[in-house]
């Protein structure tokens, strides 16, 4: 991995632990930023890079699981939890809420690095996905109101004749709208357009 294509956030109140994580991740060629508390992490201006958050469950200001719940609504990096005593209910909760892994201290190097790489990869994928959707959304925004009406009928699989009848327009007019939609959405085929509509939730 290159220097600027990812970041690993570490939140742990124990200085020794923070340093050790920094050291280990750095030695594995990862970019690391460490924080002593959840508040510090929240207040940090995060770069727009694929990221992983290594979160200690027992934080002084807020429980790691609680932090996970709080940031769930936002776009946040994938989380790898660390805990001094891994109780099963907490780990189940964390994993159900989307954590990549839940590691008990002391953890093995391979478990941690494996989890971090998975997290970064997932975050990268998620970011790409979000970008794609954003692009499609931009294209969707260029459609006229009539075209917005035609689009769902087309992707639903209606024949031109049926769609035209539904909207009370001629088949020819409908075909013109459809052509414009394909063009504006940069769709290669009807199948492509259906996929796009699915991603946009149309």
């Amino acid at each position: 991995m290159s220097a600027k294509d990812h970041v690993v956030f570490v939140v742990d109140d124990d200085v020794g632990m923070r340093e050790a994580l920094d050291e280990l991740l750095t030695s594995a060629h990862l970019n690391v930023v460490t924080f002593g508390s959840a508040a510090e992490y929240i207040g940090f201006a995060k770069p727009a890079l694929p990221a992983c958050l290594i979160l200690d469950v027992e934080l002084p200001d807020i429980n790691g699981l609680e932090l996970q719940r709080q940031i769930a609504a936002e776009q946040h990096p994938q989380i790898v939890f660390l805990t001094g005593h891994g109780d099963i209910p907490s780990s189940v909760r964390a994993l159900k809420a989307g954590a990549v892994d839940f590691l008990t201290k002391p953890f093995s190097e391979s478990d941690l690095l494996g989890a971090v790489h998975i997290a970064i990869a997932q975050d990268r994928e998620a970011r790409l996905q979000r970008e794609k959707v954003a692009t499609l959304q931009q294209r969707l925004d260029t459609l006229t109101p009539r075209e917005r009406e035609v689009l769902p009928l087309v992707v639903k699989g209606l024949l031109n004749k049926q769609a035209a009848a539904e909207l009370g327009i001629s088949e020819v007019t409908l075909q013109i709208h459809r052509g414009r939609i394909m063009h504006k959405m940069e769709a290669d085929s009807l199948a492509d357009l259906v996929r796009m509509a699915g991603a946009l939730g149309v």
Partner: protein
Amino acid sequence: MTLLGAPSAYVLVAIALTAIIGLLIRYRKLQEALRRSEQSLGRFLDTLPVIVWRATPDGEPDYINWRAASHGRRSLADVVNLQRQGKLEHPADVDLTTREWARARETGKPFDVIHRIRGVDGLYRWYHTRAEPLRDDAGRIIHWYGVDVDIDGRKKAEEALRKSEQELRLFLDTLPAMVWRANPDGEPEYINQRLADYLGRPVTQLAQHRWREILHPDDVDRAAEEWGASLATELPLAGQYRFRRADGVYRWFQFHAEPLRNTDGRIVHWYGVQVDIDDSKRTEEALRATQAQLSRASQMATVSELAAAIAHEINQPLAAVIANAHAVQRWLSAEPPNLDRAQLTAERIIRDGNSAAEVVSRIRALFKRTELTRAQLDLNEVIAEVSRLMTDEVSTRNVRIETDLAGDLPTTWADRVQMQQVIANLARNGVEAMESEESHPRVLSIRSRRDGTNSVLVEVRDHGRGVDDVERVFEPFFTTKENGLGMGLAICRWIVEGHQGRLWATSSSPRGATFSFTLPIGARDSR
């Protein structure tokens, strides 16, 4: 003859006249005597301290003595008048009197009523009126003779007595307790209504040792013994026994008996009260059971919390050590190896390893029997050292340490460090006990004394909230502090007992606690 005859006629007349005059004089004298006798009778009747009256056979009063007349300042006519108008007697008594008077006249049997008569002052007074008939030879009633005796004072006293008796009885019966009285031999004589209702039997069914029937079979012998001892020693009795309710259920009672003595000091009666404490007794038992469970549970919880705390303390540096070790491996196996970073990381490994070891040794120090170096030790020196060491800690908490050390304190054979530990621990507990309280004065006193011939005594006294259970405070994991391990006092006691001494706690009055310990005086061979 004629002449002779004439004078003799005069003589006869004269004799006759003389006789008549004599008779007249005698009659006169008799009349006088009768009048005098009547007068004296009237005076006698008037002087009698009762009302005397006479009535005709049909009940019409025709005489009352002067007392009645003067007492009410009424004439016979007034009395008759008032009676006719029904204003003489109390309205509540009129029927009774009228009925009785009619019955007496009808049957000729004596008349006897107690009733209220109104005086001129308008107030009614109680009278006891009795009348008997006087008959002629044929047995016909000629007159009724009667007396009215004023019994108002007695009647009022009787009424007051009855009222106070009634009140007392009502009081005893409504008292929310069961009350009884027994004779000097312990035989029950009286029980109040509440007790009778509870037992479902009157006091008569308790005599001749039948009171044994109302006690729980398990309590009978104990109660008999204690009650017997009380009767023999004449001392009050207080005990708790189960009494049988009418429906057969036994309930716990707090039972008290006290003797009442006369002026000679002899017991006249035993008085007793018993209060139903069954509910509170049950609650108390349940509470005690819950407390025992709770203390076991909390002890378990403390142990597991302690274990978790220790695990966390050790785990943290251990995880850092492992992570750092992996990093070192990476720095060394990198191309080219990053020796500087490896060196730095290795140093951190040592640091974190040491910190884990330190946690372990701190915990070991709490529990492990360390090597003791005992020597002749002056406890006064130790106390002075401890109070000097604690000066800062104490002043930030706004507390003052006062020491009162015996000048002639003998030395003991003890370990200096351990004694410091004990005294510092007791002192710190005392200071902390006064922290959150409105303790006054905020003074911790440490005192040393010789105790008998072969030991010395040290007392650490605070003015904090005191201790609830002077034994439990010494149990391991017992703590009232938020962050306490609950090991301090347990270790202190272990140390003192290891020195053949004794450590105990007492609650001081009005507030605060005193922790005292003794150590034997002397040399190595005394151990």
